[in-house]
């Protein structure tokens, strides 16, 4: 799987990287048990600080998406390890409130918003490996 991040965007790098890995797991480009690159290898390939990659792997491990082994390094965990939690629901509602508020403010209707959500949900399928352009 090819991941991409852009230091020029508002979103911090570590968040972009985390989202990329989660996206890969969602679309099936990263399968259960698959090895992720080592912290050093990923940091070198991207040309970013090791601490940033470390932080991402730590967060993903805490949230159950990846497991860190001594020899194998980081691997993608099985589905049981990352379910919908109360904290995630809180986080989801918080972020969505921000987006929906501004959308509504700018005059977006409920149907249009739901359609956008539908499209995004449906695009994140196993057969859509290149879900976004640059």
């Amino acid at each position, binding site marked *: *799987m*090819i991941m991409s991040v852009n230091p020029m965007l508002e979103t911090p790098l570590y968040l972009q990287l985390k989202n990329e890995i989660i996206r890969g797991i969602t679309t099936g480009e990263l399968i259960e048990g698959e090895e992720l*690159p080592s912290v050093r*290898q*990923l*940091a*070198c390939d*991207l040309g970013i600080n090791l601490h940033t990659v470390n932080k991402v792997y730590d967060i993903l491990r805490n949230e159950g998406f990846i497991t860190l082994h001594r020899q194998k390094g980081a691997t993608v965990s099985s589905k049981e390890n990352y379910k919908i939690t109360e904290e995630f629901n809180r986080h989801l509602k918080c972020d969505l409130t921000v987006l929906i508020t501004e959308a509504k403010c700018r005059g977006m209707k409920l149907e249009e918003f739901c359609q956008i959500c539908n499209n995004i949900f449906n695009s994140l399928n196993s057969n859509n490996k290149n879900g976004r352009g640059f």
Partner: protein
Amino acid sequence: MEGDFNMTTFLYYGLEFLIIFIITVMATIIPTISKPGIMFGIEIPFDKKDDGLYKLKTRYQMLCIAGGFVLAAVTLILHLQFSMVIADILLPLFMIAYLLFTIIIYYINHNTIKQIKKEKGWDKDTNKVILADTTRADANLPSYMWFIIHFILILATGLFLLLIYPYLPEFLPMHLDIEGNINNFAPKSLKIILLPVVTQVYITLICIFTFISIKKSKRQLDPKDPVASSKRIRMFKAIWLYYTLALSFLLNVLMAIIAQLMFVTPEYSYILPFILFAMLAIILIGTVIISVKTGQSGSRIKIDGKRADGSIQTGSDKYWKAGMFYYNPNDPSIFIEKRFGVGWTFNYARPASWWITAGLFAVIAGFVAYSILASS
């Protein structure tokens, strides 16, 4: 030098001219086989195949070829006018002068393009997106285990030399002159008999280091075509890794042959120049051919029938001093692809690069010192 014209002498001159030829060819073709989208160390927008830029490239290439002819002429004159001893000292100096000449033309072009880029405002058009492939960096690449074969060979050479040591004469041949005759002997000792083995070890260690650095080098994917560029990079690394393995093995075999011919059967040592010439010719010509077939970072390898064309601009010109030396403290990688040429170079902002460079010098200096001590 007057006297009998000798096959060995002919080979020696042939090798000199071959080296001059190879140096000239390599210097000339570098702009053609380097990474597309980068000219003389400066990133260029890939759709701007400017006429002015093309003229700069032609100027560089013509000057390199002309310089090569001058170097060849100078070599000829040196050999005709001066003794072998003086020619041997002066010739490397002239070769270095030629290389400096090519570097100067490169640098002039580099600055010219830098200027053009600024004037035309191309430096505004950058995209800082960076990519990574989650596939293992060393997947489908040859394993370090291949070097075990090399060490077995080294061990076998060492054991063989130790076993026959008692049966060798008291004085061992140390040097062949240009006519293929042995002109220097030294009293036999363990230090001398093991010199070929020490050489083999040094060569193999340096090749192992090269192997490691290629494997670990940064994979710089092209955002315009990430999947194809990832494939190209992998193939590029694989080809040069196998090349390093082959080179290491070939040189180890060569050292074993030299040991055999010089120590065990010196009556056949006259064939050594031929073997050396053949091997050097193969290595030099092979390097050029592989460089042309692969191109920098595999850009000339065809994926789906296409070679790589220029990439987007990343705005990293500022990290490339003179377009040749990479200095980026934010980048944790140590080995990265060259901008001008085929191969890899250091990120000089990492202390490890300096340690490694110093280490390489120390290894080579140590080896030279050992050789001199052993044969004195």
